[in-house]
């Protein structure tokens, strides 16, 4: 694992910026158009990210409004309310894995709806449009069953926020898989977010970047490791816990002899 001189790597003439819209991220058929964070045969370049939260001005005070707004709201808002929570202040293990479910529970006091919304796994859908449809379907089912959906006070309305994710180079490069456990244990939480969570909607296989890299290096040798990584659920618990769990799996498979 090496840390590049930031001034050489980032401040030099090679610096460039790419702006990518989510709807451009996948080609028809669900394949990723571009956006491989590293070449399959090359080293693992550790990236980091920062999520800017942007108010959309859209809000909902009842389920019908929530459904109507969900039909039109920017995809980046659906992204934020599913994934952004992991980078926001939380304390205890979250009971629900997205903001829509949390609002249904905390404000509308509709536990059944909260459970149905929470069971939606974003990685089951090829893109955010599919996820949007799934959300709307669950809410419409609930609306069909309800005569008078409850209202939230203005203070407790659902506020749609969208995200803008800024991705940057951490300056850390991993060339040998044996170095990966230590690299992960030293990563920032937002690097873990980028490589382990954001990757699931960014990579062709819909898996984390560590699995992609290790599979490209030697699929057979890392099959069991990747299966264990896939078993880590990042949507419950904090990023710190996810980092510890990922690090533990990597250590077990890749760095038995390393002093960590």
């Amino acid at each position, binding site marked *: 694992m090496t840390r590049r001189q*930031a001034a050489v790597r980032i401040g030099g003439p090679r610096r460039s910026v790419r*702006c990518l819209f989510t709807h451009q991220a996948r080609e028809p058929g669900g394949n990723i158009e571009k956006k491989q964070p590293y070449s399959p045969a090359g080293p693992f370049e550790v990236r*980091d990210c*920062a999520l*800017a939260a942007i108010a959309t001005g859209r809000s909902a005070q009842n389920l019908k409004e929530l459904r109507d707004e969900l039909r039109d709201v920017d995809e980046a808002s659906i992204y934020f309310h599913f994934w952004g929570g992991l980078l926001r202040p939380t304390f205890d293990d979250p009971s629900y894995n997205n903001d829509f479910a949390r609002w249904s529970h905390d404000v509308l006091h509709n536990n059944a709806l909260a459970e149905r919304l929470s069971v939606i796994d974003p990685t089951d859908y090829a893109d955010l449009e599919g996820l949007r449809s799934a959300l709307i379907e669950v809410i419409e089912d609930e609306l069909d069953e309800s005569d008078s959906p409850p209202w939230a006070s203005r203070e407790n309305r659902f506020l749609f926020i969208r*995200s*803008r994710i800024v991705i940057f180079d951490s300056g850390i490069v991993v060339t040998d898989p044996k170095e990966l456990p230590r690299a992960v244990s030293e990563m920032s939480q937002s690097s873990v977010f980028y490589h382990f969570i954001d990757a699931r909607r960014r990579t062709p296989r819909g898996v984390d970047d560590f699995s992609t890299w290790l599979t490209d290096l030697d699929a057979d040798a890392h099959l069991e490791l990747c299966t264990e990584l896939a078993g880590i659920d990042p949507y419950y618990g904090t990023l710190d816990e996810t980092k510890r769990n990922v690090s533990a799996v990597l250590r077990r498979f890749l760095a038995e002899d390393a002093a960590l």
Partner: protein
Amino acid sequence: MKLLERYAPVAGEDVIGPLQQLGEHLRGRKVVHVNSTRVGGGVAEILAKLVPLKRELGIDATWEVIEGDQDFYKTTKSMHNALQGSSAFISTEQLRTYESTNERNAGALRDKLEDADFVFIHDPQPAPLLRMIPKRRGKWVWRCHIDVSRPDRHVWKYLRGFVSDYDASIFSLAAFSQELPHTQYVIPPSIDPLSDKNVPLSDDEIDETCSEFGLDRERDTIVQVSRFDRFKDPVGVIAAYRLAKKFSPGLQLVLAGGGATDDPEGEVVLEETRAAAGGDTDIHILVLPPDAHRRINALQRTANVVLQKSTREGFGLTVAEGMWKGKPVIGGDVGGIRLQIVNHHTGFLVATPEGAALRIRYLLHHPDVLENMGEKARLLVRNNFLLTRHLREYLTVMASLLHGAGDRMELF
């Protein structure tokens, strides 16, 4: 040791690298922050550290303060109250003073503002500056620190005329955002763990402060640190204390407030608070100078429970300050306080003096719960409300503004 490196042991080793990497993309950029006071209030405290940290990252950041007379500050205080939902009358003459004061300041700051890559204008006081710098070349951002979720519509309409021309605005909570024709970022503020107000203190120093103010460290103490401002409800805090004292006769209350140079209403509210306290010698109303940071730190550390019973609040940094010292905080269920207090985990959200009294009683009679909540509170602040997180979000906004639209941007 560099300033940034000093944050690593308190904020976490892994937070520094991302700041440096993000900062590389902004190296050499000229950034000017403008507000209306150098001392007193949360904005000045944040800027006092945010600006040197940006400089250490290679960003050419400076901090300018506009100057005005008492009429100007009275006007902006009325405006501040109106934007937070209180009724206020602002005359045409006052608005003229507001604009002419900004004209004068624009003249003094023109070269710097024209030359800047980014200008951050904090709160309503200097908001008209943008219109007065027609040859500006950088990105201008209006940073609103106050709760404008239910503003007086007339005053907001007037201010909106200045704000809508900005390239972006930043609010502390999404609920504060308004109908504006530009991107509205959401960035909660933060506390500085290395400032005099938040550094660890020796027992001797805490003892010394308690002696200075006649406080008995052996007795239970509740503390609210805030400006003397009606929205902070100091009279409501006294009511809560009286209700709780029936069950904890030794209870002491500290209401400590600093003055800010842009807050002429403070004297009136201070008198109301003194009147409400009557002759109760266990109520300590302390008017502290703006630089009494270590004494405020000591008062918060001596508290069993910290209060922030605001009825309106932009964010309420004193909540994070109390939590950073391992204290559960009882706060008003408003504004940014809701973001900081995880109800029943790091403190309690309350709506009335009665609610506050109930929670004070509960915590004082359950010291194990009190201690556990305090530990959780400190952890929450460490992960979410320290200056390093705030700085990172500012850098993210700047990168975002520099490199245009799109919901994903890669800086490499």
